[in-house]
């Protein structure tokens, strides 16, 4: 099944793990499964309307999903999904 990998920033929200197995045929399904398994992750990934927060970037096998099919990108069993927050400041 696909694996969700998170940066050090978000490991706290998935029981201090670097990655976790998730179920889903699409990126959207896999993320929903992830926040169901790890409820503390939801606030950091989705806004109050259930939309992906704008500072969260999703990669599938090192390719940004914006260059693929967005959250409807289809997943294979061996795919790796990576969640990373944008890094900015002033």
């Amino acid at each position, binding site marked *: 099944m696909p694996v969700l990998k998170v940066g050090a920033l978000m490991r*706290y929200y998935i029981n201090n793990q670097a990655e976790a197995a998730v179920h889903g045929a699409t990126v959207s399904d896999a993320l929903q499964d992830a926040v169901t398994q790890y409820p503390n992750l939801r606030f950091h990934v989705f806004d109050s309307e259930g939309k992906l927060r704008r500072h969260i*970037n999703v990669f599938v096998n090192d390719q940004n999903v914006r260059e693929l099919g967005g959250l409807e990108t289809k997943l294979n069993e061996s795919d790796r999904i990576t969640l990373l927050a944008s*890094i900015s*400041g002033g």
Partner: protein
Amino acid sequence: MMLRLSKDVLAQIHAHGEDAYPEEGAGFLLGSDGNERAVKTILPLTNSREDAARHNRYLITPEDYLKAELEADRLGLSLIGVFHSHPDHPNRPSEFDRDWAQPFFSYIITSVDSGKAIESRSWRLIEDRSQFEEEKIQIN
């Protein structure tokens, strides 16, 4: 809270801030985070904000972030924070810094006055995102 780093690492952070002046320079802190948090090495990066904003804003692209995560994995380290410079401004976080910061990361800010790095301080955003707390930097 305390952040340990070597004189060499601090010198590299200051050099990156001076090289970027009058724009902001930024990069990642790679290290370990157990009983104590220690920076082992840094990964200086290009400020990817548009030209007109680079004097008071920085941006690390998602692609650079992903590469940094992979590099940290390769070195057996973790990404534990971000460093950036404040050209001709104090080394305290701005409201914009708070808007974009994430809990957990250490944020080292270096004041660079007239092209010369003056001082670095480190900050962490508290979990409810309401404010930063300063963490002491210990040089060894």
